[in-house]
C-alpha cells in the first residue's frame, strides 16, 4: 500500500513525533474525529458507515440460509470479506483480493469471532442442516490511514443494526414470516491500532504516518477490557515493553470508542 511521500515530510513527521507532537495537531494518543452512521443501505440486512478523519468505510451485512460447519453443527456462520475499492485510493487496483484486503478482513473477523460478539447458537435453525449465514462485507471508500480500526468499528455498527428474518418450520420446510428480529449481539469488540514511528507509539495513524511507520500493531478489546485479538503488521519490530504498553492503552481507548456506538 505504499505511495509517494517526500523525504522532507517523512522526516518532519518523525521528528515531530519524537517531540510528542503530530503533523495534524493531535496528541500521540488521540484518535481523529469518529462519526458512525447506521442503517444507510436499505437493501442490506444491516449497514453502517464510519468516518475516521477522512478515512471512510462502509459495511453492509446480508443474511442467508446455509449449512453449518461440521465441527459446529449448532452454530450459525460468520463470513467477513473486505474490498479495497479502486475508487478509494490511487494504490488500490481492481482484481481479486490481495494480501492487504485479506489481512484486513481476517483482523475484523478475528475480533468479532474471538470476542464471541454474535451469539451464533441463536442463528441455528436446524442442527447440522440449516443455519443463518451472516455475510459482513467491508467496503473501503476512502483510504486515509488506519483502515483496520475504521473497518472493525463499521462492521460492529452494521452488525448492531442487522435484522434477521422471522421464520417458522412447517412440515420440515423453513418458511419466512413477516417481521424481523435483531441479530443477537452480546459483545462489542473494538480494534485499536498503533503505529511505531521513531520508537514511539502513536494511536490511529493516518495515511502519511502509515507511510513513515516501522510497524503497526492492532489490539482488539472486549467489553470487560480483555484482549481478544492482536495483529502485528509492517516490516519493523516492537520491544516487549511497547507491546504491553500498547495493550494497556488499547483498553483505555476501546472504552472511549465504544461510547460512540451508544450515542
Amino acid at each position, binding site marked *: 500500500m505504499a505511495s509517494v511521500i517526500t523525504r522532507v515530510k517523512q522526516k518532519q513527521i518523525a521528528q515531530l513525533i519524537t517531540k510528542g507532537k503530530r503533523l495534524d495537531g493531535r496528541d500521540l494518543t488521540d484518535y481523529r474525529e469518529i462519526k458512525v452512521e447506521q442503517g444507510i443501505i436499505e437493501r442490506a440486512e444491516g449497514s453502517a458507515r464510519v468516518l475516521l478523519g477522512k478515512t471512510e468505510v462502509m459495511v453492509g451485512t446480508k443474511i442467508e440460509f446455509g449449512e453449518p460447519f461440521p465441527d459446529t453443527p449448532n452454530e450459525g456462520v460468520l463470513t467477513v470479506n473486505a474490498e479495497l475499492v479502486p475508487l478509494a485510493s490511487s494504490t488500490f487496483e481492481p482484481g481479486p483480493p490481495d494480501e492487504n484486503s485479506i*489481512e484486513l478482513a481476517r483482523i475484523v473477523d478475528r475480533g468479532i469471532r474471538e470476542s464471541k460478539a454474535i451469539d451464533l447458537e441463536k442463528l441455528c435453525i436446524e442442527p447440522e442442516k440449516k443455519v443463518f449465514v451472516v455475510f459482513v462485507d467491508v467496503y473501503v471508500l476512502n483510504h486515509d490511514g488506519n483502515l483496520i480500526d475504521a473497518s472493525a468499528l463499521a462492521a460492529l455498527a452494521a452488525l448492531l443494526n442487522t435484522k434477521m428474518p422471522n421464520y417458522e418450520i412447517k412440515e420440515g420446510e423453513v418458511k419466512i414470516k413477516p417481521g424481523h428480529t435483531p441479530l443477537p449481539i452480546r459483545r462489542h469488540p473494538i480494534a485499536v491500532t498503533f503505529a511505531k514511528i521513531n520508537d514511539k507509539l502513536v494511536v490511529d495513524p493516518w495515511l502519511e504516518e502509515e507511510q513513515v511507520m516501522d*510497524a503497526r500493531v492492532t489490539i482488539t478489546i472486549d467489553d470487560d*477490557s480483555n*484482549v*481478544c485479538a492482536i495483529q*502485528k503488521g509492517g*516490516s519493523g*519490530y*516492537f520491544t516487549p515493553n511497547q507491546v504491553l504498553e500498547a495493550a494497556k492503552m488499547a483498553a483505555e481507548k476501546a472504552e472511549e470508542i465504544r461510547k460512540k456506538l451508544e450515542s
Partner: protein
Amino acid sequence: MSQKPEKLIDKKGLRLDGREPDELRQIKIEVGVLSNADGSAYIEQGKNKILAAVYGPRELHPKHMALSDRTVLRCRYHMAPFSVQERKSPAPSRREIELSKVIRESIEPSIFLEYYPRTAIDIFIEVLQADGGTRCASITAASLSLADAGIPMRDLVVACAAGKVDDTVVLDLMDTEDKIGTADVPVALMPNLNAITLLQMDGILTLEEFENAVNLAIEGCRKIYALQKEALKTKYIDVKEVEE
C-alpha cells in the same frame, strides 16, 4: 475424527501429551537439507514437519517490481494437501495468504535488505504435517535457511507460541490445545535485539494473562534460539568430518 477431550490439563497439572505448562515439545532442526536451494532447513516440533528453502538474492521477475534501493523479500507459506486431517485444497487459502504476509514481515527486520538492490529473495515454506504452531516453526526454519544461504542478518528470528488452556498459561500449544484452548499468542523474536517481529493473538485473555503469555513465549523463543544456533553449527561440523 478424534473425540474432544474434556480437560486439557490433568489433576497433576500436566497437559494432554504429558508436558508441564512451560515445557516445549520435542524439537529437531536440520540445516542445509535441500541441494538445489541456496539455503534450506527442516524442523520437527511435536508432530509438525516443515521444510523451508531460500532462493536468492536473484533477479526479480516481473522486473518492474524491483526496488532500486533494496531487495524484495517474498514469502510463500503453503500447506501440503496431506498435512492435515481433512485434505486441504492445494490452492492458497486466505489463511495461507495472511500467514505468508505476517511471516515475511517477521523476517524482514532481520535482513539487511539494502545490501542487494534490484533483486529478490524468495522464501518457500512447505508444511508437510501440521500439529499446531506451524507459523512459529515455519519462521524458525525460514530464518535458518536464510542464514544457510549466507544472507547477512542482524539476528536469527525465532518464534514460539504461548496461550491459555483451561485456566493455565502454557507454552508451545499443540493442535488440540490450539483448537479448543482459550487463547493462542504466537510471538517471533530477534533475541539479541529483544525485538518482537511477529505478534498475533486470538482468544480471550485479561491484560495480566496477556503479559504472562508474552513473557512465556519469549522464554520459549530463547530456548529454541539455542537449538537453532546448534543446528547451524552442526552443519559445518558434519562437513569437517567428511573432509577428514
